[in-house]
């Protein structure tokens, strides 16, 4: 099921990745041009930064190495240089975040994570460009966090802040006291990146036989094919509330059956599918408040006409459109200096059919416990997803030590429990990692 925890982590990985690589301008050329522009921008503004106190350049360098527990093979070997340049003057500001990745021995690739311009007035902010837009109040769950797609090429293994991808468009915030209204227009569609076929994190495709997967086509950039989002927010002394809605392209495609072949007495013997991006309408809420020592929160959304894969023999196109409801309830609290967080998440397919691959409901929980030591220089944390239906889990312990204000050393692990389910399917991929991060 495309559910709240890993919404978009569908079987479209190979296709969507292919779509990116086949979208006209080659990726490497696109990156090179982008990098050149960014480096020129950085150079120009950095030079000016020495004269203008409104310009700030900061970032970090990080090395990270991780190995699979099962065979000791490296599955993470990356060096990252993250540069962030901001410049502000009066009511205008600009920001660029470019990252140079070197992963698993591949040549280093620059990536423009964000680049935008801000214009501000007394009661409005306007941001234009490539930007991350984060919604919702849940931790590690993406129910109303529907604007920015995700990089799930390594499942949920990276830190949450690295999962999010930027979108390109305009965002207008209007303010009136404790109330605000946010309007987002995205003329360019940005898909979620799913694990590539054959990669460590590629999930099994939901078909009885291995299909031939055709290339996906991204939605064309036209006014009527843009994505539109709106969110009302209130921050008050008793509670915080958000109401959101969106008319957008689903970030992962559904597989449409192009052709299939049956052999008498054998059944389905050939299948060709094409990933299709499609529009979804969504409306939801997010609320949080305090009750004594507890911080309570809830988030929920209705999605209209989502496509769910099903038996190709029962559904000619390979999928069925269904409305879905997702919600979570959760709480944070502290006991003896330990900070705890609990969430329960449920996904419901309305008008479910037994021929759909996904079950009618899916129940998941998250649990986090964290504590700091040594004057908050040492932080230990365990975050875990618990699949309540399949009895599986992903447990992510991590320990971070601030050796100095600039140098951070860290170590962690990914432990998959269970035999099946979203997390149990990776039971043989337990891993551990160590790393160092130098901030400047």
């Amino acid at each position: 099921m495309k559910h709240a925890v890993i919404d978009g982590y569908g079987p479209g990985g190979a296709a969507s990745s292919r779509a990116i690589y086949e979208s006209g301008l080659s990726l490497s050329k696109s990156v090179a041009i982008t990098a050149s522009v960014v480096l020129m921008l950085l150079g120009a503004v950095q030079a000016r930064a020495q004269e203008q106190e409104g310009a700030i350049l900061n970032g970090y360098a990080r090395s990270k190495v991780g190995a699979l527990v099962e065979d000791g093979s490296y599955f993470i070997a990356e060096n990252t240089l993250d540069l962030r340049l901001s410049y502000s003057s009066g009511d205008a500001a600009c920001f660029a975040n470019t990252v140079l990745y070197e992963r698993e021995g591949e040549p280093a690739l620059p990536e423009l994570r964000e680049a935008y311009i801000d214009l501000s007035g007394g009661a409005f902010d306007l941001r234009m460009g490539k930007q991350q837009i984060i919604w919702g109040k849940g931790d590690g769950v993406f129910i109303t966090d529907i604007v920015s797609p995700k990089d799930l090429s390594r499942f949920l293994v990276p830190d949450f802040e690295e999962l999010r991808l930027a979108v390109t468009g305009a965002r207008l915030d209007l303010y009136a006291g404790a109330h605000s209204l946010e309007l987002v227009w995205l003329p360019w569609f940005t898909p979620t990146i799913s694990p590539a076929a054959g990669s460590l994190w590629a999930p099994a495709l939901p078909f009885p036989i291995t299909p031939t997967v055709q290339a996906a086509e991204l939605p064309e950039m036209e006014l009527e094919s843009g994505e539109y989002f709106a969110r009302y927010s209130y921050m008050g002394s008793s509670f915080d509330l958000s109401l959101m809605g969106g008319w957008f392209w689903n970030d992962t495609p559904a597989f449409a059956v192009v052709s299939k072949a049956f052999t008498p007495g054998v059944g389905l013997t050939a299948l060709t599918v094409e990933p299709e991006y499609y529009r979804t309408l969504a409306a939801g809420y997010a609320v949080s408040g305090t009750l004594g020592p507890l911080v309570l929160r809830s988030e929920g959304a209705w999605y209209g006409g989502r496509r769910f894969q099903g038996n190709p023999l029962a559904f000619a196109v390979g999928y069925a459109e269904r409305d879905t409801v997702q919600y979570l309830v959760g709480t944070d609290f502290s006991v003896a200096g330990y900070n705890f967080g609990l969430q329960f998440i449920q996904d419901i397919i309305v008008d479910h059919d037994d021929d759909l691959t996904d079950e009618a409901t899916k129940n998941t929980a998250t649990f986090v416990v964290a504590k700091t030591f040594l004057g908050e220089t040492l932080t230990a944390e365990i975050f875990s997803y618990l699949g309540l239906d399949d009895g599986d889990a992903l447990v992510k312990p991590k320990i971070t030590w601030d050796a100095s204000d600039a140098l951070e050393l860290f170590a962690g692990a990914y432990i998959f429990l269970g035999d099946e389910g979203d997390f149990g399917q990776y039971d043989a991929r337990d891993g551990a990692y160590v790393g160092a991060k130098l901030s400047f």
Partner: protein
Amino acid sequence: MKRKTRHIVSLIAAVVFASLAVGATAAEPTGTEIMQAVYDRPQGKDMSGVLTMTLVDAKGKERVRSIKQISGSFTGMDKKLMVFQSPADVRGTSFMNWSYAGQGKGDDQWIYLPALKRVKRISSEGRGDNFMGSDFTYDDLGDRQPMEDTHTLTSTETVDGEACWVVESVPKDPKDLYSRTITWISKGKTVGLKRDYYDKRGTLLKTLRISSIESVSGIWVIKKTEMRNEQKKTSTRMEFSEVKIDSGLVDGDFTERAMTKGL
């Protein structure tokens, strides 16, 4: 209106205490009266400035944090917004607190982490927790109400050349972090100049020293202070700079927008 009333009360209290200080040979005020006067001391409707916090561990190694902060009182609640300027890895992190003195309601608190790009409501129950890894607890930095303790004037002493009342305060709540505190309060400024904190076993735990007080817009502002943990041998220095009083901050300056955009 409530705030205005409090200002009038504060002015009356200041006048009364100035008279008492001048006529020090006359009967001394009680411990409770002194601590109430400290609490009611005029502090301005709003304040802004830069806080530089230096954390010193037992080996003498220092870590420095720079924080921009604004605070103000609005219709029955006090609001404070702090935005980290350095070190680099926490730059842009902000923390906002709304407190409701005397209303029996717990504080509302939010934190904004730039990496996650999200404002999150957090629990305010940990008032005994250390503030950002320092030797100050959140309670140490807050406006503790006089009614929470039983105060006794024990003596008068001179600190840095200033005549002081010495007041012992014992928390009424037995679960309080400290068993008692002793505060040296300047008779002339109605400001605490130093304070000793004793743990639950009655052993000296921490000492607070004020090393610089300046008058800004006619209001005494603590500019430099140091908290030393006598048991762990750690200390935290706080220095306030660029202090402005009554600069016209409004309720709308303490919002999610301000947390995400910074000061």
